[in-house]
C-alpha cells in the first residue's frame, strides 16, 4: 500500500510539474520546440493527445490509464512508452548494478585497509573518501577519458557494446558512492572493533583479520546496506550524465531527451520506473538487513 502511494504521488508530481514548466508538449510531436507546423497539424496533435481537455480531465485520464498499467505513447517517438522503457532499462540496470557492486568492493577494501593501519593511514583514507564522494560525475568522466582513453588507450571513451566499454562509466558512477559507503562503514567498523565482543573474540583466539571479516564487518555493513537503496536513486541521477558522456543507451538519456522536448508520457514513465525500483530496493535492503542483523529479525517492530 505504501509502495502504491509512493508511485501515485510520483505520477501526480510529474504530471503537474511537467505542465507548470514552459513549453508546449504538442510541439514534441511536430518536430520539437519551435515547430512551424500548420494549424490543422497542431490541432490534430492537440486532439490526439487530449491537450484540448481541461487539466483535471487530462489528469483523470492519465491516472486511469496508469491504473490499467498503460503508460501511453511517446509524443515525439510515436512508440508505446513501455517499449521505449524496455529498451532503455537494461543499459541503465547493468550500469547501476555493476557500479553498486564496484562501489561496495572499493568501500570494503578501503575500510579494511584503514582499520589495520596507523592514524596517518586513517587520515589519508578519510580525505580520500570525502574527495571521492564529492567528485562530480562529469568531471570524473572527463578525467578518466583523458587518462585511460586518450593517453593510455586502455579503454574506449564511448560505449562499444563490449565489456571494456563498460569500465569507465562504471568506475565514474562507483567512485563517489564508494566514498559515501566507506565513510559510513568505517565509523561503524571502528565502533564494532571497540565493542566488548571484539575483545572477547580476540581472547578466544580469533585473529585480527578474522575478527574483522567474520564479526566486525557485519556491523559495519549494516548502515551502508541501508544506504544502498538511496545510492541506487543517486545512480539513476548520475546515469543522466554518465550515459550522455559515454554515449550509452539508457534511462538517463531517455529522460534527458524527453524533458528537452516536453515528452510528458516518457518523463512520467522514467520517473515511475525509477520510483518502482527504489521501492523494491528499499524492501529488499530491509529484508537483507534483517538477515544480517538478527536483532531486527527477533525484536521486530
Amino acid at each position: 500500500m505504501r509502495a502504491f502511494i509512493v508511485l501515485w504521488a510520483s505520477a501526480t508530481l510529474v504530471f503537474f510539474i511537467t505542465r507548470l514548466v514552459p513549453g508546449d508538449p504538442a510541439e514534441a510531436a511536430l518536430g520539437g520546440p519551435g515547430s512551424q507546423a500548420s494549424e490543422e497539424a497542431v490541432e490534430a496533435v492537440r486532439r490526439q493527445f487530449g491537450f484540448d481537455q481541461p487539466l483535471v480531465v487530462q489528469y483523470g485520464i492519465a491516472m486511469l490509464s496508469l491504473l490499467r498499467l498503460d503508460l501511453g505513447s511517446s509524443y515525439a517517438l510515436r512508440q508505446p512508452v513501455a517499449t521505449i522503457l524496455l529498451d532503455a532499462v537494461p543499459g541503465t540496470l547493468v550500469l547501476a548494478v555493476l557500479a553498486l557492486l564496484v562501489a561496495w568492493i572499493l568501500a570494503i577494501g578501503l575500510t579494511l585497509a584503514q582499520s589495520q593501519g596507523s592514524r596517518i593511514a586513517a587520515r589519508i583514507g578519510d580525505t580520500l573518501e570525502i574527495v571521492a564522494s564529492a567528485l562530480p560525475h562529469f568531471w570524473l568522466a572527463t578525467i578518466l577519458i583523458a587518462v585511460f582513453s586518450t593517453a593510455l588507450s586502455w579503454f574506449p571513451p564511448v560505449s562499444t557494446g563490449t565489456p571494456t566499454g563498460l569500465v569507465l562509466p562504471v568506475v565514474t558512477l562507483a567512485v563517489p558512492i564508494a566514498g559515501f559507503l566507506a565513510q559510513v562503514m568505517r565509523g561503524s567498523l571502528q565502533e564494532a572493533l571497540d565493542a566488548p565482543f571484539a575483545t572477547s573474540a580476540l581472547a578466544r583466539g580469533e585473529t585480527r583479520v578474522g575478527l574483522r571479516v567474520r564479526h566486525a564487518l557485519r556491523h559495519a555493513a549494516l548502515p551502508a546496506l541501508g544506504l544502498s537503496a538511496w545510492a541506487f536513486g543517486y545512480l539513476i541521477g548520475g546515469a543522466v550524465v554518465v550515459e550522455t558522456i559515454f554515449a550509452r543507451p539508457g534511462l538517463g538519456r531517455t529522460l534527458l531527451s524527453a524533458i528537452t522536448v516536453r515528452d510528458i508520457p516518457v518523463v512520467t514513465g522514467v520517473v515511475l520506473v525509477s520510483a518502482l525500483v527504489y521501492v523494491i530496493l528499499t524492501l529488499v535492503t530491509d529484508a537483507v538487513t534483517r538477515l544480517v542483523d538478527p536483532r531486527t529479525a527477533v525484536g521486530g517492530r
Partner: protein
Amino acid sequence: MRPQLSRSSAVLATAVISALALSACSSDPEPAATGPTEGGTLTYASGDAEPTCLDPHVGGNYPQALLATQFLESLVSRDADGAIIPWLADSWTVSDDGLTWEFALADGVTFTDGTPLDADAVAANIAHLQDPATQSSTGYLAVEKVTSVEAVDDLTARFTLSEPDSALLESLSQPWLAIESPAGLERGIEENCESPIGTGPFVVESWTKQDRVTLVRNDDYTSAPADAGHDGSAYLDGIEWRFIPDSASRYAALQSGEVDVIDNVQPDVLVQAEGSDSLVELDAPRPGATNRLELNSGTAPFDDVNVREAFIRSVNVDDAVSSLFQGTAERSSSPLASVEPAAYSDESLFSFDPEAAGDLLDEAGWSETDADGFRTKDGERLTLTFPVSTNQSIPAEISLFEQLQANAAEVGFDVQLELLDLASWYEALGANEYDLVSAPYTKVGPDVLRILYHSDGITPAPSGYFANHAQVDDPAIDTLLDEASATVDDAERTSLYEEAQADVLEGFYILPLYDQQNHFLLSTDVHDARALGTVSTPSFADAWLS
C-alpha cells in the same frame, strides 16, 4: 555592390575540397593517384540531437537532414557556387507568369524498395508534406505556394503555384523536401519514421535508439547529383551513424579511432586538432541566415533606432569573436550566410565606438546614470532581456554573449542574460519577453530574408512560433521582399534582396556575428567526403577509406 560574392564562393569551394587538399598537405601522394578503394564501413559520430523520426518530412530539423542526406535525394541540388543543378530532375522549365513549373525526371531511377521514380511519386511526396497528418513543419512551409502537382506523363511533373515563388528550386533542393518511395509513405508514419525509403547511396538497415543508425550501401544507386565525384554505387559498404552527444567524448572517440568522422566540432577542439597530422577539418558553414543578435524593435527601448545603434556600437564583437573562437570563426556583417551568392554586407555599420554609443543614448533621452552605472530615463533603468538557448548556442557563443554584456555595461546597458532550455526559450520569445535574441535559421537561398524580416513573420504560427524576432515592420522592406519572391530573373532578384539587406542593416535591427558554424573533423583515412552545397550536410557517396 557584392563584396561577399567572390569570397563566399571561395569559402565553399575550400570547404568542399578541403578533405582532399588538407589530407595531402605534406608530401603525401594525391588521393587520386592511389584511387578509391572499395569496401569498409565508416563510423560517423553525430553530436546533434538524435532525430525522433528519420523521415525529414515529419517535423523537419537539421539532425534529420544530416541523416537523410545519406539515403534520400531531392529533385535538385546546389553546387559550390550556389547554382541550382540537376539531381532527380534532369531539367525544368517555368512559365512566363511564374505559376507553372515542369520538372523532367531522370530516367530509370528506382527507390530501394523497387518502386520506380515517376511523376506520380513526386506528386505523392508533395501531398505527403501538405497533409496535416504528416506533422510537417519545415517542408510544409516550403511548399505553401504549391497548389497542385500533376503527372503530365510518366517522367514529367507539373507544379502549379498560387503565386510566383522564386525560391521554389532552392526550397526543393533541401533534404526536408526529399523524394521518398510512395509505397514507403503509405506504410504510415510509425513505420516510415523508422526506415524511410529513398533513392540515395545508402539504405537504412536498422535504428538502435540512443545508439546508432546502421546504413548499408545501395548497390543499384544511379542517381548522383550533377556535381558528384562519380556515378554509380558508393565505395563504402556502409555507415555506422552513432549518436555521441558529449563534445569531449566525441573527440576522444575520434582520436582513439573508434569513429572516423565527428560533427559539431567546438572551437577548443578545432584548435587542439590543428596540430594533428591524422585529422582533417571540413568547414561547411550553413546556408540561410548568419548567427546574429536580433534587436526586438517591437517594444521599448529598442523601438528607438538610436538605442539600437547605441547597443550595436557599444559592443566589441571582433575582439570577442577572435578571442573566444580562436580564429575558427570569421566575423560577418551580413544578414545572409557567406555561402549565399546574394549575401550583402556593410562592415562600416558595425564598428565598435562606445563614445558614439553614449552620445546616441543621450540623444534618445537615456541621459541619466544610476548608482550602478546604468543609464536611466524617467527613473527607469536601461535594461535588456536576453534569453539564450543552451541548445542552440554553444559554450563559446554563450561566453561571447557574456563578453558583449560586459561591453554594453560600460556604456550603460543592463543586459540580463537568461540561460534557458529550448522549450522555455521559445516560450519566452512567444510571450515577447525579450529585447535581444540569437536564433539561427537555416534555409537554402536568400528567401530566408522574407521569413525573418517580412512583417508577416511577426504573426505567430498556430504553434506560437514566429521568425521575425527583430519585429521588423517596414512597408519598404516588405515590398522589396515580396517583389524578390516573385522575380524569377536571377540578377534582378539578387539586387532586390541586396536592397532589402541594406535596409535591415541600416535600420540596426540585427547585429551579425558569424556564419552558422558547421565544422567536421575527419580521420585522414577518410577521402573524398564533402559537404553538399544545399544545407551543408556531409555526403559520403564518393567517400572511401584507406
